[in-house]
């Protein structure tokens, strides 16, 4: 997304959400990751949680409608993982996409190539 969240969807409509390397680099060392409770329904664009460093706090926005199935509890103890491996072990939540949500068609989502292009523009 333009807000630097990523979403990876599996066949069964479960999806992982995290934030991009560009975003974690910009934030600096994460000191705390706030995540929603399992079972919460969150609509696209609503706040999913936040990531805090010593100097900043950034909201994370839900990329597509869905219900939280699992959260990455490892981040409670080790928020630094978000910096080390934002696109892998630093995932934030696993969720079940809402009925009728087709990621290919959700407004505001971009492919990796499209996203990287926007970064070039940002610079």
């Amino acid at each position, binding site marked *: 997304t333009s807000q630097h969240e990523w979403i990876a969807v599996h066949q069964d409509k479960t999806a992982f959400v995290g934030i991009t390397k560009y975003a974690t680099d910009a934030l600096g*060392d994460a*000191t*705390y990751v*706030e995540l929603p409770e399992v079972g*919460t329904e969150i609509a696209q664009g609503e*706040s999913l949680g936040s990531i*805090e*460093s*010593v*100097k*900043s*706090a950034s*909201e994370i926005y839900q990329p597509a409608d869905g219900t939280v199935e699992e959260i990455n509890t490892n981040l409670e103890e080790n*928020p630094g993982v978000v910096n080390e491996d934002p696109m892998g072990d630093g995932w934030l939540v696993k969720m079940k996409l809402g009925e009728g949500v087709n990621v290919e068609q959700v407004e505001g989502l971009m492919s990796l190539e499209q996203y990287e292009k926007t970064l070039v523009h940002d610079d």
Partner: protein
Amino acid sequence: MLRTRVTALLCRATVRSSTNYVSLARTRSFHSQSILLKTAATDITSTQYSRIFNPDLKNIDRPLDTFARRHLGPSPSDVKKMLKTMGYSDLNAFIEELVPPNILKRRPLKLEAPSKGFCEQEMLQHLEKIANKNHYKVKNFIGKGYYGTILPPVIQRNLLESPEWYTSYTPYQPEISQGRLEALLNFQTVVSDLTGLPVANASLLDEGTAAGEAMLLSFNISRKKKLKYVIDKKLHQQTKSVLHTRAKPFNIEIIEVDCSDIKKAVDVLKNPDVSGCLVQYPATDGSILPPDSMKQLSDALHSHKSLLSVASDLMALTLLKPPAHYGADIVLGSSQRFGVPMGYGGPHAAFFAVIDKLNRKIPGRIVGISKDRLGKTALRLALQTREQHIKRDKATSNICTAQALLANVASSYCVYHGPKGLQNISRRIFSLTSILANAIENDSCPHELINKTWFDTLTIKLGNGISSEQLLDKALKEFNINLFAVDTTTISLALDETTTKADVENLLKVFDIENSSQFLSEDYSNSFPREFQRTDEILRNEVFHMHHSETAMLRYLHRLQSRDLSLANSMIPLGSCTMKLNSTVEMMPITWPQFSNIHPFQPSNQVQGYKELITSLEKDLCSITGFDGISLQPNSGAQGEYTGLRVIRSYLESKGENHRNVCLIPVSAHGTNPASAAMAGLKVVPVNCLQDGSLDLVDLKNKAEQHSKELAAVMITYPSTYGLFEPGIQHAIDIVHSFGGQVYLDGANMNAQVGLTSPGDLGADVCHLNLHKTFSIPHGGGGPAGAPICVKSHLIPHLPKHDVVDMITGIGGSKSIDSVSSAPYGNALVLPISYAYIKMMGNEGLPFSSVIAMLNSNYMMTRLKDHYKILFVNEMSTLKHCAHEFIVDLREYKAKGVEAIDVAKRLQDYGFHAPTLAFPVPGTLMIEPTESENLEELDRFCDAMISIKEEINALVAGQPKGQILKNAPHSLEDLITSSNWDTRGYTREEAAYPLPFLRYNKFWPTVARLDDTYGDMNLICTCPSVEEIANETE
């Protein structure tokens, strides 16, 4: 007509002072036209400055202890020198070049004071006369959140009245603030221990706003989905009022229940739309909810993940079971009765504690334990990312300044008394209350005690056909006692630390109880009911057991104070904070009993002194701001912003324009602006700034047009947060008005405007003033503040009222918004400070505060611009001058390894507090010297900055010496015990004494640079426990 009056004025001036005759006459012959116009306006010439500064020995009417020359730093001859470095010969010409002609109004001030101001002794006499009109010897048993207390004299003199404590700033530079950070940590420890909750903050504004924060925290935890909030009927009335104010913008429905009917209450709480509940413990009528009821309330709420909040009293909690025991998630209240005078309602420190899970959600500042570069334990403000300056409109609270000074008084009170001492005070209060309660319950008494449980408060239904009015009258006339009328036949009273046996005897007589000796001989000090009694040991930490003799306490306070840099050490050039003189004469009245022993709910005929003082201050502040009405209720800048916006919304609503809910805010605004707007239920739309720092008027117009239907207001700081007098301000105001929006001018930078221009003259509708910036109230190490809002006439009917007492200056009516603070006039006790400042400067002197503030900052900028890049005032810009502050740009060095924070920390080695760091532009320092610094001090600071520039150059060039910046500040311990001095690339001497003056005047940072990340990852916000210390020593 004009000509005659002006000539007459001139004549008078020449008659009075023959020395001025020559210069005046000469000017007049050269520019007769312009002088005529200027004399009608406020005179800000260098000649006038000399006249104000130098005593006139021929005039024996005027004593020599004039104030303006003590408040204003540079002498007339220094002013001349400073002007010369910038190419000017007169102050007036300098200001005319600095302030755009359409802005510079010079409307003469009409202050209720001698035109040259009171002299210092005159001021004290004048204040004493006013003060004596307050009934301060009456015994107040009114209670309701405000209680008599004994401020231990050792704390009064060495903390509350000590400039080392009251002139310091919020401890954002922890290396030179370890003293008050320790005192605040003690405060948090007290709160955490007594409430039983692990995380406490370092104070909030008052009990009412703390309750508001608890409600909004509960609401936010529900992701703003649960729109009902339940409150106990038995909350203090003023707390309810503030809750209603805070609930309205979010459409939260407040449901009042009677928690003594526990079944019904629990049913209401089980509703999943309820985000939380606030009960008072002990309640406003004195009763204490049984443990079982408390448990049922919390269970009902927790069954659907909502929160129980408890408003409590720290004194009672020294005996009472802590609310955490029953599952409370939030506990709040006032720490006033721990040594802080009632002061007609404030300032007092509210406390706020939460369960672990909420530690990232707690509002306000938290002191946390971290370590420094050398691994030594050190304190700092923790988790700042929660706060408005980071989160802006996403922040869940707009709180900024709190009540640090008063929190420190309260924590020191606990250190001095220790747990035993506190419990003795509590037991005595309980015992005396019980004597009275048992006497009233005795058959011989015609009245009926309503509350069957109590700590210090009794509510009494009157018998024998006596009305409350009659009883209050009798108590006052015969015994000089104030009680509280609950309704026409019910009264209540609360005893406190100051209550004596004689007082209880008198109270027994008030209630027609005979045989008083029979009751007075009873001792209830060990009879606190077991079901309510706490069984744990409180305040076990060492600090509460070591300083009980006055000698030990004096030394403890002195030790803490000597670790902190305050205005008693050197200038604190914090941009946007205006750290000016807080003069001794201004400060003296605040500990006079005539002002401090006043309960906010005393009847208006007993507070005529306050009435006179506040009425006159209101008029003066209206004259200064060019407005028609004012509310002194808001007790912090952020609170002022909130009040202003709520008043605007109330006005729009009365016009049927409730749908207007968009607030335009420039991106350069202070973080409290968007946070306050969000709290007032407004949608924030940012407005861009241009490359040169000025407001983007095109963008403003576009946004205003785009949102024309919903536009409620714009919030603009003037001069801008960049310290610039933007010529386009009036145009901006016109644009917003043309689309139906109201204009809020943030008064943070008012110190550049006084007597020269004003928010009212510029066309704004509301502004707030930071009395703790522009009008000399000290910063107190992070509060108290004072932040009245001034308004145009159309907004006056909407100014906040008070639910318990009438506003003594006649504010408030049917259109008024509910209270924004617990007390009718907010932090009333500190108002004499601003009053005295204004009256001692006078019409003629006060404008020079702004003039000299701008002279000082431009002089410094001129000296520094050859060494540093200055933001916005440079060759790229059309502006030649900054206003009262300017920004040093250090961003170009970042790639080379030097950051603004390195310069800030290195300044500590030179004995200075850093300027404002990273606001309003990251990677920069904003310098504001104020008018109170003299030329020598300005030069000393400039010399330090220039010397640091050489160190920057060394680091950029890759020389090892440059590391001196990265290792700064250098504590004594670093100098003495570090073993790596051979390899540092610089000497100990270079570290500690980079300039010669430091050998004579050196302030030592007590610790090395703080590790911020460590502190935020390992939050500890209470004193280490006995066990932890034991483990450490093992």
